[in-house]
């Protein structure tokens, strides 16, 4: 049985709107995941949050709120990365 999927159609230079939409959604999802579970980026955001608090651009309340949020995201990202294959980890990084 031949499965007609978006990649196959694309290989022949064909494009079907519904498949394209799915493809774009997958791309967006991949991008969002990479952004969400990028440890380096989350760590940078934690440092930036401290910096903004230090120069008094954000209040203590805002700082603590964001700090907790980022810490949670960092822990979650670590857990998710632990369950990924090496190839997937390389892709995220």
């Amino acid at each position, binding site marked *: 049985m031949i499965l007609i999927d978006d990649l196959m159609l694309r290989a022949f230079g064909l494009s079907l709107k519904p498949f394209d939409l799915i493809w774009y959604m997958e791309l967006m999802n991949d991008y969002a995941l990479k952004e969400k579970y990028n440890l380096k980026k989350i*760590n*940078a955001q934690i*440092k*930036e949050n401290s*910096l*903004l608090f*230090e*120069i008094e*651009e954000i209040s203590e309340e805002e700082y603590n709120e964001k700090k907790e949020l980022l810490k949670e995201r960092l822990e979650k990202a670590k857990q998710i990365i632990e369950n990924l294959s090496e190839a997937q980890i390389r892709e995220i990084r």
Partner: protein
Amino acid sequence: METLKAQESENFQEQNNPDDTKIENSGRCQYLYVYGIIPLKNSKDLKFNFIGLREKPITIIPYEDIGVLISKYPFLNPILDEKEAMEHADILKKIAKKTTVIPMAFGNVFNDEKILELILKKSYNALKETLEQIKNKVELGVKVIKNNEDVIMDEDKLKTEILNALNNLSVKSIPGENFSERLLLNHSFLVEKNNFSKFSDAIAKSEKKYKQFKFIYTGPWPPYSFVNIHIRGQK
């Protein structure tokens, strides 16, 4: 600067001790927490009027004319704890006020004195060389931050101007992590102790001259960023 990784042999390897909780609960501290390495010449009378982590006294394990500063600690693999990491930094700051020190990062814990003696013995030359390089010097940190809305023309030119003024008063400088788009500059400077005031004045001048930026100036610290020596146990 020479990079050195002194690792003990596999014989000394130990993973997380399942009895760690028992040790903590019973108040026993059998492991050795390392703060840094100091020269022992002229340090015979070196006494610390402050205590180490977990309120344990700081002692010295000597080898020839250098020594490693330790205190007893209950865990071999400490969990990174913000409060304890701050305490570690504070203790090292106090040590640096008394003597030259090769500072260690938070969380270096060893099984016993023999391992540390072995590390000192194997790494003696590199440690001596590093101690000489950082003698009478401190680390100062400078961050220059752009305002949120401003579009900066000649950003690179301004960065170079600020850096040049500070580099002229330091022995060495290295860039830190560029963790935010708001950072124009994030550098650590190795400065002679007797140039500390001049360096601080230069920061004050820059703050006046470049009012469009915010400056964060920290230190003096032990020269963490300028020692490339890591001692650690095998995991």
